[in-house]
């Protein structure tokens, strides 16, 4: 059972961490944009 938990755990943590990294990087890029431009609707 510990092998199964390790396999799913490492996958969940890695993908979750990557998602957080991408969302934070996108928020940072949007924050540095000049005012008056169209905002992202995604």
């Amino acid at each position: 059972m510990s092998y199964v938990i390790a396999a799913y755990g490492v996958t969940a943590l890695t993908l979750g961490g990557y998602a957080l990294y991408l969302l934070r990087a996108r928020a940072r890029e949007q924050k540095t944009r000049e005012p008056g431009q169209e905002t992202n609707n995604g």
Partner: protein
Amino acid sequence: MNGLGPVASKVRTASGALLGLLLIAYAWTVANAPVDSVQGVIQKILYVHPPLAYGAYLGFVITAICGALYLWKDDERWDRLAIAGAEVGVIFCTLMIVTGPIWAKGTWGKWWSWDPRLTVTLLLWFVYLAYLLLRSFGDGGARTARFAAVYGLVGVALIPLNYFVIEIFGGRGMHPENLERGSLGDGMGLPFLVGNLTLFVAFCWFVLLRWELENLRAASLLRAADPLARAREEIAT
């Protein structure tokens, strides 16, 4: 300039919402999947290891196709999507290389074997890791992008080799043969399907988010490099 077009933006939002529901279904189906009579509970790694492999393949195919489109159309958006495909593909490939040895330790008794499938998988991972290094340390210009496009097109040839290497070596390696229709036991088809669907939707969400980030970064660089455009924006505001 928006990070994504309206269609891609809607697809990303929809895939994010769908992913939440799929994750619940995924956890439920894996927890309730039957225990394999030969391998025991460790066989449940099947519901994450092959879907990660398919995600890695898809990421590298996107890199090759978008690289070809960039060479043909000379449109940087395709080059930026190629980068997104490679990065998400490498993440999925890394997880495939990590989950495989965890499964191997529990069934073969050792973490690694220089089996043909494992060796070609490691080679595939190195090839696309080198692609990402090229993009990180290159000058970021058109010359690097063109070279990376050709590199991605050549590298994708490893995917059919990776998939069929077991048949090429006549099944003499330790890695099990590729899954075929009917090769899963009773009750194992649904968790495998849900696992594939969940990781496919997650893959789409990651690629679109990464593409958006790359587009936003490119727009920032363009504004920083063009004082006239910046001045026009300041006047407009």
